[in-house]
C-alpha cells in the first residue's frame, strides 16, 4: 500500500508531563465519586505539579465513555471547578477507549498548527457511578407526565406506568450492534489467532510485576496523585503468578478453547488521567520540561459486524499506514505501549503483524510488519495491572511513555496502540 509521505509539520507538540489518580476497581474506593469529581481532582493534581494555578491554557480536551446527562459539559465544568483560570476553554470528546489518546492528538494538532500554545488532554470514567437509564416506555410516560397540565392528566399519565417499565437499563460493556460483550468479541479473535491460555497469563503477570516494580522505584511519583485514600491502583497484584492465574475459570468464550479469565482481562475500573502539552517555546517560557514530542497518529476502523474482522483489531490496520507515512518499520522503536484491554488482544495484534498472509491480504502489505522485541513491551505495566477506566487509559499511556522516553535519553521512539469499542483503533508515535 503506497501511503503518501507526510508533509513536515511546522512544529511538534511537546508532552510536558501528566497526572492521574490511582485507578480503582468498580464499586471500590471511588464508588461515591462522579466523573466530574475525578476529572477535577486530576486536573488539580496536574496544576499543583506544574504550578499552573490561575493560568489560562489554550484548551482542555477530555471525555468520558459513560456519561450522565448532567455530564453534558463535563470538561468545561471540571475546568471551572479546578485551580486553572476560568478563562480556559474546554470541550468533550468521546471515542470509546480511544478517547484519552484521541484527546491528546487533538490538543497536539492544534499546538502543531499554532492555534494554541498549551493544553491539557484527559479522560475519566466511572463504572460505579454509571448512569442508569429508564426504559423507553417509562421515559415516554414521564415526559407525558411532565407535559400534563391538569391533575387529571397527570393521574392519567401515571396510570400508564406498568411494573415491567420500572427496571432500569444498566449500561453494559456490550456492542450495541452485536449484543456481545467486548470480552466475547475478544474471545472470538483469540480463538481465531490461536492465542494460548499460558501466554495470556504470562503477559498479565508481567504487567502486574512491571507496574509494581515501577511504583517501587518511584517511577509513578510524578505521574500519579492519590485520591480518596488510594495511592496505588487497587487492581495491582504484585504477587501475581502464572500458577495462580492458571487456577481461574474462563469468563469469556465457551467450552474447550476458552482461555480468557478475570486474570488476563481488564476489570471494570474507575479513574481519570490528564496530560499537559505545549509548544517547546511555551514549555521553556514556563520553566517546564519537555519529556517527548507527539510525532504522528492514525486512527482506523474495521467492520466487525459484517466484515469478518475482530472488534478490537482496528489498531492493527492503523499501524502500517502510520509507519509508512513516517518511513519507519515496526522494529524502529525503543518502547511499545499496547493497551491491554485483554491479554489476548495484545497477542492477537502482535501475531497479526507477524502473519504474512494477513499482512498481505488484509493490510495490503508486501511483507509482514514482523515481530517486536518483547522486552520493550509495556515495560512499566499496562491496563491488566492498572485497570482500564475507558477514557482515562490513553492519558495514562501517553504520560507514562513520555516519561520512559525521557528517562532513556534524547532521540528515543515509542509506539502506542489502543483498541476501542465500535471496531476502532488509535495509534501514535512519541519521540524524546
Amino acid at each position, binding site marked *: 500500500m503506497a501511503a503518501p509521505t507526510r508533509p513536515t509539520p511546522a512544529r511538534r507538540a511537546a508532552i510536558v508531563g501528566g497526572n492521574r489518580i490511582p485507578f480503582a476497581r468498580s464499586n471500590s474506593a471511588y464508588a461515591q465519586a462522579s466523573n466530574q469529581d475525578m476529572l477535577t*481532582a486530576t486536573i*488539580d493534581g496536574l496544576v*499543583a505539579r506544574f504550578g499552573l494555578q490561575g493560568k489560562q491554557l489554550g484548551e482542555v480536551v477530555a471525555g468520558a465513555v459513560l456519561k450522565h446527562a448532567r455530564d453534558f459539559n463535563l470538561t468545561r465544568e471540571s475546568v471551572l471547578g479546578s485551580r486553572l483560570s476560568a478563562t480556559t476553554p474546554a470541550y468533550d470528546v468521546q471515542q470509546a477507549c480511544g478517547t484519552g489518546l484521541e484527546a491528546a492528538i487533538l490538543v497536539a494538532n492544534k499546538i502543531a498548527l499554532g492555534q494554541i500554545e498549551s493544553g491539557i488532554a484527559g479522560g475519566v470514567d466511572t463504572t460505579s457511578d454509571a448512569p442508569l437509564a429508564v426504559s423507553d416506555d417509562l421515559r415516554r410516560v414521564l415526559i407525558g407526565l411532565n407535559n400534563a397540565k391538569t391533575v387529571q392528566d397527570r393521574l392519567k399519565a401515571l396510570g400508564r406506568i406498568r411494573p415491567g417499565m420500572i427496571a432500569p437499563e444498566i449500561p453494559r460493556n456490550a456492542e450495541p450492534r452485536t449484543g456481545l460483550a467486548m470480552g466475547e468479541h475478544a474471545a472470538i479473535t483469540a480463538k481465531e489467532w490461536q492465542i494460548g491460555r499460558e501466554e495470556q497469563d504470562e503477559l498479565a503477570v508481567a504487567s502486574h510485576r512491571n507496574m509494581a516494580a515501577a511504583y517501587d522505584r*518511584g517511577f509513578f*511519583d510524578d505521574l500519579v*496523585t492519590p485520591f480518596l485514600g488510594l495511592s496505588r491502583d487497587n487492581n495491582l497484584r504484585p504477587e501475581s503468578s502464572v500458577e495462580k492465574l492458571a487456577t481461574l475459570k474462563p469468563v469469556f468464550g465457551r467450552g474447550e478453547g476458552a482461555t480468557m479469565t478475570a486474570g488476563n482481562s481488564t476489570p471494570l475500573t474507575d479513574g481519570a488521567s490528564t496530560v499537559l502539552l505545549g509548544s517547546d517555546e511555551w514549555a521553556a517560557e514556563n520553566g517546564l520540561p519537555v519529556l517527548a514530542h507527539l510525532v504522528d497518529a492514525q486512527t482506523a476502523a474495521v467492520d466487525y459486524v459484517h466484515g469478518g474482522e475482530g472488534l478490537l483489531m482496528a489498531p492493527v490496520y492503523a499501524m502500517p499506514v502510520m509507519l509508512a507515512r513516517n518511513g519507519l518499520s515496526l522494529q524502529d522503536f525503543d518502547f511499545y505501549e499496547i493497551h491491554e484491554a485483554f491479554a489476548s488482544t495484545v497477542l492477537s495484534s502482535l501475531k497479526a503483524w507477524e502473519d504474512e498472509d494477513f499482512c498481505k491480504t488484509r493490510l495490503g502489505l508486501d511483507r509482514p510488519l514482523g515481530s517486536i522485541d518483547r522486552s520493550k513491551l509495556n515495560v512499566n505495566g499496562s491496563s491488566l495491572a492498572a485497570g482500564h477506566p475507558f477514557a482515562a487509559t490513553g492519558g495514562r499511556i501517553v504520560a507514562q511513555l513520555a516519561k520512559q522516553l525521557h528517562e532513556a535519553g534524547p532521540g528515543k521512539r515509542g509506539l502506542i496502540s489502543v483498541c476501542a469499542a465500535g471496531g476502532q483503533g488509535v495509534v501514535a508515535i512519541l519521540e524524546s
Partner: protein
Amino acid sequence: MSDWYRDFANSGFGTTITRNLGLPRPAVLRRYEPGQPLLPGPAVVGSAGEGRLRDAVTELLRAEGVHVQSPVTADGATDGEKPAAVILDATGLRTPADLASAHDFLSPAVKRLRATGRVLILADPPSDAASPAQAAARQALDGLVRSIAKELRNGSTANLVHVPEGAEGSIASPVRFFLSGRSAYVDGQVMSVAAADIPAAADDERPLAGKVAVVTGAARGIGAAIAKVMARDGAHVVAVDIPAAGDTLAEVANEIGGTALQLDITADDAPQRLIEHLRERHGGADVVVHNAGITRDKLLVNMDAARWNSVMAVNLQAQLDITQALLDAEGVLKPDARVVCVSSQSGIAGNRGQTNYAASKAGVIGMVRAWAPTFAERGATINAVAPGFIVTEMTAKMPFGTREVGSRINSLQQGGLPVDVAETIAWLSQPGSAGVNGQTVRVCGQSMLGA
C-alpha cells in the same frame, strides 16, 4: 486548632474563675500579619555602661516608625504611653557592678511594659570577654533574661542576642524579629549573630520575593504552615512530601501558588531527583527547609531496629544527604542560600520513649553547628529551629491530660502554633538574616523542658 482553655480564661466569666482559683491565664499572643507595624506602641532603649549599639538600634526603630522614649527611673515621671518594647544595650558591661545599671533601667521600664510586649537585651558573648569579671557580667545576663521571661505575663517575651565585636551590621534582622509578632512563641532564648555581608534592606512585606524555597513534609502540620508563610513572604514554594500524601500536598501547593513534588526523602535517589527537579524547573534553590520528620516512640529497652532506623533515616540522614548533595551540585544551591533544619525540644531535653527521635533531633543541632563555617564561606547560612509543644493534628491525638500538661509547662502557658515555627524559619530564610548562622532557635514559649 483552638485553645479552649486560653479562650475560656480570656472570656469575662473565665477571667473571674481563673483569677479566683489562682489558675494560669494564658494570653492571646501578638502574631505577625502583613501590614502590621513592628510594634503596637513606643519602645524604650537604654544601656548598661557605654554601649555601642544603642544609637544604631534607636535609628533602626525610628526608621520602622517606632516612637523611641527615653528611659525612666524607678521613681521618675512616666513618659507618655506604656512601652511595647524595652531594649537594653549591654555591650558596655565591664564588671558585675555594671549590672546595677541594667537593673536600674529594666526594673521601672519592664514594670510599665504593655501586654504582648518585648524585652530584648543585646550584649557581647561571654566567650570574648577580656577578663573573668567581664565574662561573669556578660554571662549574668543569661540568668537575668531567662528570669525576666518567666516573670513576664500577658504574652510578653524576653530574649538575649549576643553581638560580638564587628557583628554590629548584622543586628537589624534579629532585632526586628524579636520585636515583631513573628517571634510570638520564642521566649527566654539566647542566640548569637556574626559578622556577615548584609544585603540592602529588602521589601519588608515580601522579604522572600523572587526566591525558590523547598519545604519538605509540606503536606500538613508545621510543614504546610511553613509553605504558606514562605509564599506569603514572596517565595515560590516547592512543596515536598511522600507520594502517599500527594493529594493534601497538591492542595497546599495550589493554595499558595507553589508546586508539588512527591518524593520520599529517604529514597536512595532522593537527593539526585530533588537536584534534577530544581535544575530543570527552577534554576536552583534559595531556601531549603528540612521539616519532614517522624516519631516511632518506644522505651529503649523495647525499641526494635526498624523504629530506630526509620526515625534516623527521615529525621537526620536525609537532611545530611540532601544538604551534602546540594552543596556538591554545581549551581543548584544559590550562593546566599538559607538552609533551615527542624530539630526538636526533645533533642535538647530528651524525652522518655523517644531515644531514637531525641538522638536524631540532637544530631541535627550538631550538624548545623558543624556546617555553619562552610556555609558562611559561600555567603549562605544553615540553622535549626527546635519547636516545643506545637498544636498540630499529631498533638491533638494525645491523651487530654498529657496534652494539657505539655501545652502549659512554659512561660506563655500555652502550646505554640505551626505558624510560630514557620515565622521563625521564614525569618532565618531572609536575605537580611545572613549574620545568623549555625544557631538553634527554640520556638517553645520558654518551655521548662531542657531549659
